[in-house]
């Protein structure tokens, strides 16, 4: 099998990704136009996931999640089912979740998120102040991480936000440290408080 054949197989991204790489635009941003209608979010959903990502990882001395296009990464990731998000959902049994289920049992996460945030904001979540948005999202996060809620849909969305951020150049190499070629291994180095972790510690990424 030739390399060329493999790359051609990427139906959704293919040449778009190569073009994106060539002109320096994150691949996830431009590939949204290639999503199937079923996977394409509404403008409002796109605005919601973008804003929600920035509330999870806000701008500090380093960029926030929305600043680096994480909302669009989550859309792309959900369309392709990364992290098992196209598998039949264990949360589907929750009454407030069941109506966002596809016939195959997987969830329409963005539809669910839109509804969940509006419900917790008691109106149009996007129209609230940033502080109110954040408070509503914090309530949702607290529910999702409560005892016994490990199938909560927010966990999957939050996980993709984190993946999108810490695998971006800013998240991976400015917020955290990225050293592709350490050149040596030292098994015992003093650790000062508040030392950033390595995004390039692959074992830690897998098992940490």
């Amino acid at each position, binding site marked *: 099998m030739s*390399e060329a054949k493999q790359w051609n197989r990427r139906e959704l991204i293919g040449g778009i990704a190569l073009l994106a790489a060539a002109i320096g635009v994150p691949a996830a941003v431009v590939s949204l136009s290639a999503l199937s209608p079923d996977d394409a979010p509404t403008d409002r959903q796109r605005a919601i996931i973008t804003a929600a990502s920035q509330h999870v990882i806000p701008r*500090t001395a380093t960029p926030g999640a929305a600043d680096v296009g994480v909302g669009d990464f989550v859309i792309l990731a959900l369309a392709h089912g990364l992290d098992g998000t196209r598998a039949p959902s264990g949360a589907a049994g929750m009454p407030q979740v069941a109506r966002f289920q596809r016939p195959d049992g997987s969830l329409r996460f963005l539809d669910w998120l839109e509804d969940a945030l509006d419900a917790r904001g008691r109106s149009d979540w996007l129209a609230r102040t940033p502080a109110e948005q*954040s408070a509503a999202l914090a309530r949702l996060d607290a529910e999702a991480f409560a005892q016994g809620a490990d199938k909560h849909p927010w966990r999957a969305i939050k996980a993709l936000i984190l993946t999108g951020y810490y*695998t971006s150049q800013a998240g991976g190499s400015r917020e*955290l440290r990225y050293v592709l070629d350490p050149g040596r291994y030292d098994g015992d*180095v003093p650790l000062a408080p508040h030392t950033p972790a390595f995004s390039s510690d692959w*074992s830690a990424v897998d098992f940490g």
Partner: protein
Amino acid sequence: MNTPEFDVIVVGSGITGGWAAKELTEAGLRVLMIERGRKIEHQVDYETETKAPWDMPFRGLGDAELYREEYPVQALNRHFTEFTQGHFVNDAENPYATAPGSDFTWFRSYQLGGRSLTWGRQSYRWSDYDFGANKRDGHGTDWPIRYADLAPWYDKVEEFIGVSGAAEGLKQLPDGKFQPPMALNVVEQHVRGVLAERYPGRVLTIGRTANLTEPKPDQGRGACHSRSICARGCSYGAYFSTQSSTLPAAKKTGRLTLITDAIVEKIDYDPATKRVTGVRWFDTTDNTRKQATARIVFLNAGSFNSNHLLLNSTSEAMPHGLANGSGVLGTHIMDHANTLSAAAMMPGFEGHTSFGNRPTGAIIPRYRNMDVMDGIGHTRGFSFQGGALQSTWTRAKREAGIGEDYKARMREVGPWRMVLVGFADCVPRVTNRLTLDPVKTDAHGIPQLNVAFAFGKEEMAALAQAKAEASEMLTAAGGQVMFGFDRPGPGGTAIHEMGGARMGWDPATSVLNRWSQAHQIANLFVTDGAQMSSSACQNPSLTYMALTARAADAAVTMLKEGKI
């Protein structure tokens, strides 16, 4: 008879195929090495080697939708990522069957270099506890060799490929010709000390790995840079692969002919001379069938594919498969039963961290059922591989919170934790077997391999004991055990599938003799994992390489003496 075109045809270019080609060409023979997959050139074709996650369309995680459709098995492999997917087979294009009730994940790499590009590089000698295991407990058939037969070949292989490790003087895991060991980290060093103090006979040591800690300028190979992205391909040549090591050596002789994109379908057998005469293959570049002749055939297609080729090479004289007069061909296949025996938080090292990505873990070699039979419900061994590490950003997925404080917390190096993965010896059973599927074929009309496999009570008992003892040891070392498992993953999980063309004393009950040579066919050698008669509980690749070098030497001697 026409003069054969080659002295030897080597089928496969992976870990053992490369060794066969090197040894045979260096002995003066003209060798044709045939690889079913595409050509991958050292350095030049390692396309993702220096890429960052943000350079990849799916940030290194890969396109899960594509994987569900075309790589559903390979995607289960921890080393399969968006960076490495080009080094694994497309499952949809390379189907195999499983028997009812069998769940077997067959991880494969069809390409020049085979799985030598993606292997875990752990390199261990087997001991007489392993070669004597079948004789001692009666499972399987007795190995016709012992450690002393293989020791000089282990020396040769280790010196050439470069294995870093620490000598420990253990009878169950003999020391080798090691390059300097990689370092234990601060937590592993502590656990080593606790074991030494409280558990006589148990040792935690650094993994012995085919990653160089000193360069090998004669092979153009540099020392490891502690990137731990080996499976992408390493332009430093710091880990052993066909590309970095054996292929250049074989090419240097001027006696190697290499063909890629060629799926060998059949080995030709001449009943008049009782010899194999060559092989036939399907050329995937032009969809034609081709053949070549040779005086000797070495099978190095990978454990299961070597079985497949023998089973598929039927003839009137050999209706049940080539060299299968015993009827045991395809039976007694094995894979290590493995599972995460224990994971623990390791408090007390908050002021310490590590630098660099070490491409090996720490191990605790077997300590049960050696001179005293102290296994509970099993007669063989288990060992642990694992190590201590600190978490990074992925832990954020498990933690509640949003906003600036959360971001600040997730920025920090996470707490130390330690994992021990148990590897249990797999008992050879006649019911675990490979056959040609009677119905299903691949795209080229070749019958699919059908895998029937299940672990038994011995493996379950070993992993139960491993779980209990891993937890006990980590607790003794101050760890807080979070969880552990005692059930193995599906067969194939350890990627140590082996057996099927087992070695043995008796032609009536085994396929190969002590020289990895078919009992029935003097000029046919099978020197990959198919030849294994037992599994041990340590990684097998080094043993495959030593057996290959030994068989190549034997074949050359026999050829010179006119015996084959």
